[in-house]
């Protein structure tokens, strides 16, 4: 069964520029909002992913971040709070040839939408989910979100929040995600690389973007992104390379098999050499090391990792679905009259 009545003779991919992905509607985020930098990178990256504009769909829920599709010149659905992955899943399963992105916020994806989030990760549906994590509900003007810090004071928690936050990559990995990455709004180039990697991944892809909300949660990430500390507080995971950080790149991560724990070491001190360091490999089938790195952001004294935690190729839900459909068609043919008639019919003259 075909879903379209269009002549889908394969035409060559146009050469796109960034502006081909701008809808012409001016984004209405607050001045200085990190969302601007995200849309900028998305629009910059899309020309290079090799998919026709009309075959790309942006699906979002509700939130500041979820206004995203209106500003893109693709097909788009601005849906209901938390539910974007549900729409995206139906769309992708029924039209596997489309490239489907979910643009979502921390509340949208992880509060009301937590279930759809973990299920889209579990299913390994080829949907790219970009979560703008400002650790606050922006659109509703400043309540605690599931990524807000414990004891955080917000409008809905005037004496502080009694809730522990999720570590989103950890949750995604726990749900079985095959691609998990983290980046930061102020790191344009890094974000671009993550978006490209996600676009290239076949299967569910999750990118957490640390995003500043200057109005309701200003400076949520300055303790990481401040020029003065950035090198010490952020560690960049690069494929095949040892995990090093620090101004001079001399600090590194080593796994101590005796304590079964991670430790921070300094190259050149106590006989530590680069060979002792953990080498980043996001393609390990077993996610344990990805878990360990993802969990690190919450560990006192450890740097926050950005980059790709995990990137493993497995058959996707929609691939397997359509394989079964094709198989069944081959086996059974699909004669509707036979289906209507069934096995036990009788005739009245």
């Amino acid at each position: 069964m075909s879903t379209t009545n269009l002549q889908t003779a394969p035409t060559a991919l146009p050469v796109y520029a960034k502006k081909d992905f701008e809808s012409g509607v001016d984004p209405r985020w607050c001045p200085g909002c990190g969302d601007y930098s995200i849309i900028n990178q998305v629009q910059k990256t899309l020309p290079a992913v090799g998919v026709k504009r009309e075959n790309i769909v942006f699906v979002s829920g509700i939130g500041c971040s979820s206004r995203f599709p209106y500003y893109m010149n693709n097909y788009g659905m601005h849906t209901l709070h938390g539910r974007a992955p549900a729409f995206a899943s139906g769309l992708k399963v029924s039209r596997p040839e489309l490239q489907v992105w979910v643009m979502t916020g921390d509340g949208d994806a992880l509060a009301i939408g937590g279930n759809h989030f973990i299920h889209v990760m579990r299913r390994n549906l080829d949907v790219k989910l970009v979560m703008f994590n400002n650790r606050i509900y922006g659109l509703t003007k400043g309540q605690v979100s599931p990524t807000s810090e414990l004891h955080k004071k917000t409008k809905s928690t005037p004496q502080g929040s009694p809730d522990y936050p999720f570590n989103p990559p950890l949750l995604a990995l726990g749900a079985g995600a095959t691609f998990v990455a983290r980046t930061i709004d102020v790191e344009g180039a890094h974000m671009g690389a993550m978006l490209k990697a996600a676009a290239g991944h076949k299967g569910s892809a999750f990118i957490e973007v640390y995003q500043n909300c200057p109005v309701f949660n200003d400076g949520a990430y300055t303790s990481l992104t401040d020029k003065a500390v950035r090198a010490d507080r952020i560690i960049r995971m690069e494929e095949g390379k040892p995990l090093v950080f620090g101004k001079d790149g001399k600090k590194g991560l080593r796994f101590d098999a005796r304590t079964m724990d991670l430790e921070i070491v300094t190259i050149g001190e106590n006989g530590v050499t680069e060979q002792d360091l953990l080498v980043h490999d996001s393609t390990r089938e077993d996610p344990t090391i990805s878990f360990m790195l993802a969990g690190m952001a919450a560990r006192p004294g450890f740097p926050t990792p950005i980059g790709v935690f995990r990137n493993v190729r497995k058959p996707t839900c929609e691939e397997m679905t359509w394989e079964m459909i094709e198989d069944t068609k081959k086996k059974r043919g699909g004669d509707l009259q036979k289906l209507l008639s069934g096995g036990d019919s009788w005739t009245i003259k």
Partner: protein
Amino acid sequence: MSTQATARKTEVQQVDTVTIRFVGDSGDGMQLTGTEFTKASALAGNDLATFPDYPAEIRAPAGSLFGVSGYQLNFGSKKILTPGDAPDVLVAMNPAALKMNLPDLKAGGMLIVNSDAFTALNLEKAGYKSNPLEDPTVAENFRVHLVDMTKLTEAALEGSGLSSKEVGRCRNYFALGILYWMYSRPVEQQLQAIAKKFAKKPEFVEPNQKVFKAGYAYGETAEIFERYVVPPSKLRPGTYRNVTGNFATALGFATVARLTGRTVFLGSYPITPATEILHEMANMKEHGVVTYQAEDEIAGIGSAIGAAFGGALACTSTSGPGLALKTEMMGLAVITELPLVIVDVQRGGPSTGMPTKTEQADLLQAIFGRHGESPLPVLAAQSPADCFWSAMEAMRIAVKWMTPVILLTDGYLGNGSEPFRIPDVEELPKFEVKYQTGKNYANGTEFMPYLRDEKLVRPWAIPGTPGLEHRVGGLEKDSLTGMVSYDGLNHEKMVKTRAQKIRNVVEDVPDLEVFGASTGDLLLVSWGGTFGSVRAAAEVLQAQGKKVSHVHLRWINPLPKNLGAILKGFGKVLVPEVNDGQMAFYLRGKFPGVDPLQFNRINGKPIKIRDLVGKVLEVL
């Protein structure tokens, strides 16, 4: 065949309808017995209707009252509208089954009992203080046949090498054999059916055949049973099969896929009694059906809306609690004006309620249960086979008018069955689905997703179509460009336009046909699954010379154009419903001045013809 060789001369009485109920423990195979006898009746050319009565969802201890499973069949030589009120024949395999069902047996009806099962232990499990078979009033009120089915089955299978558990599993064929004899059904046919059924376990073919034949022989030789013949009915010529409402619904959607050449997408989450629609459609992949078992009902409808945006003919199936969960999503489908069918197989509520029992109490939720002004068409199937046509019709309306449509069925329709005249695929009405392919505004230079046609329908432009990229969403949209708009007057216009569009659907709602005279003393107005009972009651009343007519509402929103005029032609209007009066309220609100009488049963069962007839006679 030996059974024929020993045939004795019995007087064969001709009857025109019979209602039989098979009841026993969950493990007694009553659903199978019922289905097999149903097939035999169908093949004999009878019209028929069936209704299974499953026990509550979890398997109960053997012999307990909770574990009783039943199957009722009404067949006859005239048009059969319902599975029958009270059975003429009750086949009861154990005390618990007898206890739960005897009160329903018609006075003077026939009771066939597996008397072996009336052990002290089983009687106790059923809560009987003494053996009801020894109760003289039973024998006075009914024609009782005590048959030692267990022993007779064992005898038939002596030396078969089957374990006693396996032997027990054959017992239901003994009962079936008796009934085959009683209703003059051809034995050969059932023998073949058994061979087919156990094709994969050939060691059970012969034993079951043996038991079946033993039952038949018992009927013949025991000289205690009457023998009947029910002549074939005059159904419209054609090829028929027996379908449940849920299966018919699935079939209707699959047929849509074939007629349109498009993908039909079902996003669903299992829930009693709607689950079979998912089961069946999942097994229709080769016909263009894609099913997706979502993580919950919200994702079920959400995935369907996503698929609809992608151009699929999308549907979702559920029951009351699931419909409740889909409420917010339905609002989104209304405002985005995407085609979608939501099937609600109603069950007893509120809340989890009585999941295996039928009810019609989701009506007002279907019509009004969304926040904001969010009207949508509501259609209700009237019989199991009509579910096929209703599913197709609902999808047609959804696509033609770019709107979500609710299709109401219920547990009674979904699980009940009746003969379905198999349509010829090639003769089914065409169903073309067209997507927008070009720009529609300013001489083809722009695309306006909310530019409506004269019927107020907006275009369906799907991903993959170059140049028509646009965004849909739940915020109010500008009435032309589809951009987000907070303008109050635009909102008012959009609210009114959406409402008018749904009112316009009336052009596809056929006028009602009045069954009976178009004026009279009383008009029965029914909707949904009560069609059969109410029509049958009307027949009874008309036969008694009462000035009673009947109209049945398949379309609930919009209501048929001529309903208002019809209502005026009757002194009284009576609305029978399996709820507390929801349609009656709706009609009052829709037709000021009309104040229908109500007949409401909310006991988990379809309305009984005789109860309704009684009510009408009382109020006439």
